[in-house]
Every structure is written in structure tokens, then in C-alpha cells.
């Protein structure tokens, strides 16, 4: 309610107050957008928006400033709340179920596919933005479209790539980070011998654990389901991937079995882990905390490519969803279009300093990807990701299997030698049957 009060006060003292809170250039952009936009907010419109708790303060501030500018220019008050993912996702689902709650939710993964009927058709906004900004990456489309309609906007993707220490890899004989799984195994073995091991989370780490476990399973052609959503996890390809994992596991740093999402960041920053997978947060923390030794010696790389012959990476989508139950669909569409217009979206990317990447091809040119070459790989996040439901459809079964760490546990079992590759694949397959009922 505070926001409304402030907003009303601002309205009263329109000119002076607005200039004090919103940068003039942003405000004038918002005003001209409000003039030209194909979507005119309904009179008396107001928007309630719920988002996840920001990773980086600068992104949160930039987004808030854009919302404020939109409010100033259109007179539509916006109330923005934020929640951690574990509260946000159930709230989003319940809002869909009861048809009331926030108008816009900025959520995670493919959650709109769990309640597609509650989503407002965003096709016109998507067509408008796609036409104006070089088109959407195919994976952005895949995540957002259902039955020929856009049920959400694939606002941004968070990249999860290889983080490595350059000097340690050079010592191990690799001037470039290996681009294939065989060389990658050699590198990891050499690093272990040199007393400088890498490590990948084997605990129930929803971000890093899922990213690396899916990468390795897919890299050898293993996958949970086929194009028709038939369960095909227990396959020779999956077993081959797990055999590879069983060779990779012994090269890891001690303690990986207990690693959750934060452990590899800490180990890497301390210098006790030379290769791991992560977003850009390790690099950002090294810079922020003045750990120049780490920041200067580290870099990011694409995931190595395995026998599957193509990138098999998994990055996370954060879609913007508008609910059918909103009383002000045009205001919501205008707001999301405004956020994704060049001036705002470029500012958003820059404020996100590589944590978050774009779904529209035109934003490849954003300086954030070139001003620091160590961020370069994150530019291709949306280009290179597969959906977590690969190669089947998004929905309840895929979401449940993903949340239940079935692939992560399978890979961990093989990596730690707790089960043979054959057993691990067969047991994981059996667990997944629960969701892909046979």
C-alpha cells in the first residue's frame, strides 16, 4: 500500500517529484512510448506485480526505475512485491487456480505450462517485439508457446557455464578450455593429479546440480523422454553418459557429494576448486570483493560437446506471465512491451552484468557482452540452452521429474560409485515412471 500512497503523492506534485525519482531520459522515453504504444492502458488501471528476489541489486534498481517511469508516463500505479522462488512458485500456481492475485508474475522455468489456461494470450506483444528486435531465439519461442499461442514472454535466461582457472588448465596442458568431452575428462584427470581438482555439485542443488547433470546425460545422447513424451531414460546412451560420469567423479574435489548451489562458489573463490559450473556470480563476487587473483585468472567457457555432437547445455528461463484474471490486460501488455523495448532492455542487461541474458536476437549487440570478454559466453545462453524437458514437452511431469532431482541423483550415484551406471539408469527410470505413467 505504501507504493500507492507514494504514487498518489507523486501524481499531486507531478513534475518536480517525477524528475526527482526517475531519470529525465527514461521518463521522456516512457512518455513517447505511452504515445506510440499499440496498447493503451485502460482508464483507472493499476498493476500488481510479483517477482523473484533479485540476484543483483543493480538489476533490481534498474527494473524498479523502469516501472516508475512507466507509472509516471501512463498514470498506471504499479505495486511490485518480491518473494523467494520457493514461495513465489506456489503463489503463482494458486493465483492461476483461483483466478485472483497479482496481474503479472515474473517467475521461473516453464511454470506457465503448468497452468496455461490461466495465462493471457501474449501473441500480439511477442509478435511486436520479435518483429522489432531481430526475432526470438527458437528456445525462447519453445518455452513460451503452447498450441500456437504465446502464453508468457520469455523475458530473460540465466546462463550456467563452465568457470575455470586459466593458469591451472594451462599447467594441465590446455591453453584453451576443452571443447569436447574426451579432452574435458583428460583435463579433469590432469588437474586432480596436479592437486588442483575441479568439482561439480552432486548434492540436491537445484541450479548448478541440474545444469551439469543434464548436460552430461545429454552430451552422450541420454534423455528423459522422446519427442512423444515416452520415457526413454534407461537407454544405452544414458548408460554411456553414466560410464563417462563414473570416470569423471573420482577427479572431483573432496566434498562434492554435499555440495548445494553455494558450495562451488565458495570453493572456487578460495582456490580449492579449479573448474566448476556456475552463473556469472563467482566472477562478479571475485570482482566485488577485490579477489583480483581469482578474477584475473578465471574465465568462462561453453560446456564441452560430447558424442551427441551439439551443445547440450541447460540454462534457466525467467518468464513474465500475465494472468487472464487481470482487469487491465492492455496496461499489462503495454508494461511488458515497454520493459523489452531497446532502451529499457539494454539498461536491464547492463545492470544485470551477465547474470541474465536476452531472448531477442537484436540484443546480441549489447555492450555488456563485449566490454568484458569474460562475459562473452553468457551472450549465447538462450541460443545454446535446451529445455529441461528435452526432448519432450513442458508440463507437470517434466516439472516434477526436474524438481525431484531424478537426473541429479542418477548422476551422483554414478559419480560416487554408489551404483553401477546400469543400475543408476534403471533406478532413475523407475522413479520417473511415477510421473510419466506407463
Amino acid at each position, binding site marked *: 500500500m505504501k507504493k500507492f500512497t507514494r504514487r498518489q503523492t507523486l501524481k499531486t506534485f507531478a513534475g518536480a517529484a517525477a524528475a526527482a525519482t526517475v531519470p529525465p531520459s527514461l521518463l521522456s522515453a516512457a512518455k513517447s512510448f505511452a504515445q506510440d504504444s499499440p496498447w493503451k492502458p485502460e482508464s483507472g488501471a493499476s498493476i500488481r506485480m510479483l517477482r523473484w528476489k533479485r540476484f543483483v541489486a543493480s538489476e533490481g534498481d534498474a527494473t524498479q526505475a523502469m516501472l516508475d517511469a512507466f507509472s509516471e508516463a501512463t498514470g498506471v500505479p504499479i505495486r511490485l512485491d518480491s518473494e523467494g522462488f520457493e514461495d513465489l512458485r506456489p503463489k503463482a500456481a494458486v493465483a492461476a487456480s483461483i483466478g485472483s492475485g497479482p496481474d503479472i508474475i515474473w517467475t521461473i522455468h516453464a511454470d506457465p505450462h503448468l497452468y496455461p489456461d490461466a495465462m493471457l494470450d501474449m501473441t500480439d506483444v511477442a509478435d511486436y517485439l520479435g518483429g522489432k528486435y531481430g526475432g526470438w531465439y527458437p528456445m525462447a519461442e519453445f518455452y513460451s508457446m503452447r498450441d500456437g499461442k504465446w502464453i508468457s514472454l520469455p523475458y530473460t535466461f540465466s546462463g550456467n557455464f563452465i568457470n575455470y582457472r586459466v593458469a591451472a588448465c594451462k599447467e594441465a596442458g590446455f591453453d584453451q578450455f576443452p571443447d569436447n568431452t574426451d579432452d574435458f575428462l583428460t583435463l579433469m584427470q590432469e588437474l586432480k593429479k596436479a592437486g588442483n581438482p575441479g568439482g561439480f555439485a552432486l548434492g*540436491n542443488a537445484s541450479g548448478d546440480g541440474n545444469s551439469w547433470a543434464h548436460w552430461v546425460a545429454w552430451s552422450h545422447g541420454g534423455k528423459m523422454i522422446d519427442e512423444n513424451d515416452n520415457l526413454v531414460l534407461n537407454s544405452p546412451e544414458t548408460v554411456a553418459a553414466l560410464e563417462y560420469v563414473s570416470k569423471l567423479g573420482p577427479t572431483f574435489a573432496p566434498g562434492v557429494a*554435499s555440495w548445494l548451489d553455494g558450495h562451488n562458489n565458495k570453493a572456487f573463490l578460495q582456490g580449492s576448486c579449479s573448474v566448476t559450473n556456475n552463473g556469472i556470480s563467482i566472477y562478479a563476487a571475485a570482482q566485488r570483493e577485490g579477489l583480483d587473483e581469482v578474477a584475473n585468472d578465471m574465465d568462462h567457457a561453453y560446456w564441452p560437446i560430447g558424442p551427441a555432437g551439439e551443445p547440450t547445455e541447460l540454462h534457466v528461463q525467467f518468464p513474465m506471465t500475465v494472468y487472464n484474471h487481470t482487469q487491465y490486460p492492455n496496461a499489462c501488455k503495454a508494461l511488458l512491451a515497454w520493459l523489452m523495448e531497446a532502451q529499457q532492455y539494454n539498461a536491464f542487461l547492463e545492470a544485470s552484468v551477465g547474470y541474465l541474458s536476452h531472448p531477442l536476437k537484436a540484443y546480441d549487440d549489447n555492450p555488456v557482452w563485449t566490454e568484458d570478454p569474460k562475459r562473452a559466453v553468457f551472450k549465447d545462453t538462450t541460443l545454446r540452452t535446451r529445455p529441461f524437458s528435452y526432448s519432450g514437452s513442458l508440463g507437470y511431469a517434466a516439472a516434477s521429474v526436474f524438481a525431484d*532431482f531424478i537426473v541429479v541423483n542418477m548422476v551422483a550415484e554414478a559419480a560416487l560409485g554408489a551404483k553401477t551406471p546400469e543400475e543408476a539408469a534403471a533406478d532413475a527410470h523407475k522413479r520417473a515412471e511415477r510421473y510419466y505413467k506407463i
Partner: protein
Amino acid sequence: MASNTHASGPKVGLMTRLMNNRNLMGLLFMIPAGSILLVFLTYPLGLGVWLGMTDAKVGRPGEFIGLENFVWLMDDSVFLLSVFNTFLYTVVASIIKFGLGLWLAIVLNNNIPFKAFIRAIVLLPFIVPTVLSALAFWWLYDSQDSVISWVLIEMGFIDETIDFLGDPNNARASVIAANIWRGIPFVAITLLAGLQTIPKSLYEAATIDGATEWQRFTKITLPLLTPIIAVVMTFSVLFTFTDFQLIWVMTRGGPINATHLMATLSYQRGIVGGSLGEGAAIAVAMVPFLLAAILFSYFGLQNRKWQRGGQDD
């Protein structure tokens, strides 16, 4: 006169009679408490049981599927592992909490310097929010920077850091230790209250009769403490069996589900994974075990007449 009384009788009498009807008034007075129980206890419990028999997802009402969820769970290795973990966790932690708690209570019951201050300090682990203490243990158990490992290495007992949360059995022991640390104050302080209700005269009489310290403990302290022990241990078992936060913060149920409890698995599947029906089924599966624990302490350790100065039947 007679007819007058007769005529006005029912008029005045109906309300009066109703007001004087003990059964009716009893019922009326129970309505507030009863409805609170109904709305806040019976309904959620019933809803949980119902959800456990549906295929509901978060945000989507499910259809009735009978016992299918339970049938699946019986064949689910992760669920069965979580049942085993929950039992191990509850039994080991409860026994140690009881032993150490009783010992601590007896120590605190003696005249020691700064008694009030020390008693207050003992409560500290109980006062600290669980998530905070879990985070503290998370650091203590860190695979690289554990203080425990560091001290042992510096003292020359071990050569490399202990993998507290990475090895399945280490992880189980570690989370149990954290739970014990957190649970002892509750047991100790409650038993201390019980100890203080035991009349000193009993001990004096026993001493005069030549009873040893051990005899005084087994023949006076323990029997008179039994009702309190029953209550304390019932609660302690319930808290331990349903523990969630410690595990969720420290291990998320890992490594490879070695520390998944029924409560954490229920949350992982029901809320994070969205399979509300299955999550509810796991939670409902905890109820029989909890009922058994309550009944055990109710019948096994209930108040005996002789403890109140009467005769046993």
C-alpha cells in the same frame, strides 16, 4: 390464580428451562472451542488425507484416485529410504536427547553457582531460530572450512578434512548431532521443572534409611518423574519425527537422499515439484507412526495412582 400461573408458565419457563438445561448449555459453551478445533485442526487434517488420495497439483484440483499414491510410494526406493532415515533420525536423536537432557536437568537441579544464569544459557540453542542454528552447523560441517576438521588436523589427529555431509553415514550422524544440540534444552528444562516438584522430604527420608545415591535416583527420582518424561518425550519424538528446517538448510536431503526425511521429501515433491497429492500422501503416511508414538507414551508412561499417594489397582 391457578390459571394465571398456568398461562404465564410456559412463556417465562421456556427460556428459563432452556437456560437451565445443562446439556444444552454445555453444548453451547463448547461451540467456540469446538469450532476452532474443527476449522483449524480437523479440516486441515481431513483435507490433507483427502489430498493424499487425489492427483492434485499445486494450483489444480485433482481427481480421486484412492490409494494409488500410497501404492506407488510403497514401491518407491526414495520414499522407503526416507522412512528409514526418519526412524533412524528420531530414535537415535530422541534417546540421546533424553539421556543428556536428564543428566543436564539433574546437574542443574543441584545448588551450583550462578544457577539462574546457567539455566538461562542452557535454553539458548532452543531460542535461536532453527534456520540460524542450521546455518551455523552448515559452516561447522563444511567440506573444506570446517572448524572441527581444522582443529583435529592442527592437533594431529587426522590428515584431511572430514567429509561431514558428503558421506551418507557421516551426513546422517551430522544432522542427528545438530538436532540433538537443538533439542536438549527443551528436554532438560522441562525435566528440571519436574525435578523441582519432587518433595525434598522423600530424599531426606531415604537418606536416613540408608539409601545410596543410585537407589534414590532409581526409586524416587525416576518414578516420580515418569509422567513428565512421558510428556516431554512425546513432544520430543513428535518434533524430531517432523523435523524439516535443519535438513532443508544443511543438505536438502542429500547426499543422494541419504538424509531425506519424510517431511523434507513431502515438501520437495508436494510444493517444489508441484505434486501436491503425492506430497500430501507422504505427510499422511507419517500420521500412523506419530499416533503410535503418542499412544505408546500415553499408555506406557501414564500417571500411576501410587505416584499421587494412592494404591495401584
